[in-house]
Structure formats: structure tokens, C-alpha cells
């Protein structure tokens, strides 16, 4: 009995997060190593490859994430864990949007952040599809004043992740 490391999506999300935060680190360290002017040159030079990378990433994500999610016993646990992992993206997006609104943010940096937000929008779209699928479970559950229903969220939050569903 152990917690399975079957969350391939979690790993993918983590990779994308590392990629995006890695860019931020490169930007900050190059600014401290070189002058701001030289960093801007690097950023302008990197804009096209970055754009291509993001376009490719969005293309991949569109293929990976279906527009509609169908739940079954086999995928439920994995998809629910994926859904829980999405919360880390909320914080990232909020921070990115905050940087975008700052006046001192350069045009080229805004371009990079915008591209990241566009990519994240796809992830959020998938989250909405997941949310809708989970809500469907609740809406399909009849309620009664005596035999009260338990919501999907309540059941999920109370369970021990170490156990596998038997059905």
C-alpha cells in the first residue's frame, strides 16, 4: 500500500512550470551578469524561438487536453489529482498579470509574459472541462432531506489517497 506516482500530468505541469520559471531566472541572472542593454538584445533575439516554442507547446497541449472530459473509474483518481494540482497555476498567473500591469515592465518582457499567459489559458480551459465533469456528478445525485447526499468534493477531500478505488 503506497501512494502511486501515476500522476504523469503532475510531472508535465511541473516541467512546464520549471521551464517558465527558468526563463525568469535566466532573465534575472543575465541582467546581473551583463548590462540591461545587452540583456534586452538577448531577449529580442530569443523572442522568435520563444514564440515558436510557445506555439508548439500550445499545439501539444491542445492535443493532450480534450475539450470534454468523460469520467470513469480508471481515470477518476488521476484526473482529480490533476485538477487539484492546477491551483499552483493560479498563483503563477496572478503574479504574471501583476508584472504585466507594472509600468516599468519592458515591452519585450510583456511579450514573453503574454505568451506564457496564452499558454496557461489552455490549461485553464482544461481545468474548466474537468470542473464541469465533476459538477455533473453532483448534479446527477439526487438529494433527500433525510438521506443526505455527499458531494464529490466532500468525498474526495475526506479520502485517503493511499487507497485505490475498488470500483
Amino acid at each position, binding site marked *: *500500500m503506497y501512494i502511486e506516482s501515476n500522476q504523469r500530468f503532475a510531472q508535465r505541469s511541473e516541467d512546464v512550470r520549471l521551464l517558465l520559471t527558468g526563463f525568469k531566472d535566466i532573465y534575472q541572472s543575465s541582467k546581473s551578469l551583463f548590462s540591461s542593454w545587452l540583456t534586452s538584445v538577448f531577449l529580442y533575439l530569443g523572442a522568435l524561438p520563444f514564440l515558436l516554442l510557445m506555439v508548439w507547446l500550445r499545439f501539444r497541449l491542445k492535443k493532450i487536453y480534450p475539450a470534454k472530459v468523460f*469520467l*470513469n*473509474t480508471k481515470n*477518476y*483518481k488521476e484526473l482529480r489529482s490533476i485538477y487539484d494540482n492546477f491551483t499552483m497555476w493560479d498563483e503563477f498567473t496572478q503574479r504574471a498579470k501583476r508584472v504585466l500591469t507594472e509600468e516599468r515592465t519592458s515591452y519585450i518582457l510583456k511579450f514573453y509574459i503574454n505568451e506564457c499567459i496564452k499558454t496557461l489559458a489552455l490549461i485553464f480551459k482544461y481545468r474548466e472541462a474537468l470542473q464541469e465533469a465533476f459538477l455533473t*456528478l453532483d448534479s*446527477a*445525485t*439526487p*438529494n*433527500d*432531506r*433525510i*438521506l*443526505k*447526499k*455527499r458531494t*464529490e468534493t466532500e*468525498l474526495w477531500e*475526506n*479520502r*485517503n489517497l493511499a*487507497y485505490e*478505488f*475498488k*470500483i
Partner: protein
Amino acid sequence: MFDKYYEFRYILYKKSEGEFPYLREHKLTFVCRYNHRYIVNVQEFEYHVYIIKFHLKDHRHSENKYNLQTDYHDATRVITTCIEIMLYFYRKFPLASFGFIGANSVGESKKNTKRYRIYRRLMENFFSPIHFSHHYYEDGSAYLLLNRANTTENLLEKIRSLFIKFYDVPTDKTF
């Protein structure tokens, strides 16, 4: 924990006799590692509702057979076996809904009993909300797994009236 269970055996079923409300009572049995035999009674009601009860065979003549504790410290395996029996019935009857009451131990109140709290936790862990919707009645320590595949109209209300008839579940009027 809760991954090992005992091999069980289906013995027989008997049809309801007069005062008993269920359609049939299925009897299953298994022997634990301390060589004690358990009896599992699965009462089949209308609308494919199955109520699971179990007791130690040695307690079969006791009025409190469902309330007594064995003190063999083997509850996890015994309960897991009952869950396997539920799955056995589900495979046999795909429209089956399951219910149980966490019986109170001697001297314990019937409300939110210790058994109920354990069973409820197990239902969360082993029965996903994909095939079953989960319902509870805490004051009577009752739990119901309602099969989503069963499209009988107002099924929950019908099951509630079964619970009202045969278990200590109050009617709407008392609320």
C-alpha cells in the same frame, strides 16, 4: 490495511417470510484466521437494494448479534471481506445499490456510531462517486450507496421509505 480479505462462500438464499420486509436474504460465510466463522446476511429489497449485515456465527442466537464486539482485533480483514461481498453482488447485479447501518455497540447511542464512522470512511476510500452516489443519515448511522445506473424514478425517495419502514429512520413529518 484493508487490502486483504477472507475467501467467502455463498451458502443459500431464503425468501422473505411474512413479517420480514425484504424479498430475499442471501447468506454467505467466511472463516477468519483465528478460525472463527462469520455469517454475512445480505437482505435484498425492492429496487435492487441490498442491505449488508454480518455477525460472528457464535453470536447467532443473541438478540444483540450485530451489536456485540469480538475483540479478535481482526476488524479490517472482516470489513474488507464484506466490501468484497458487496462487489460480488455488484458484479452479479449491476443495478445493485447498497446500504448498511453501523450498529451501536452495547451501551452506545445509535447516533453516529463508531462502526458507522469507520464504514463511512471506507466507502469514501473504496467506492468512487462514478458508479454510486453516497448518502447518509447520521442520526440513524445509516449509509447508502445509490447505483447511478439504476434509473428508477424517484429511487432515493423509494429507498428512504424502505428505510423508514424497516429501520429507525424518521419520516418527513418528524423533521
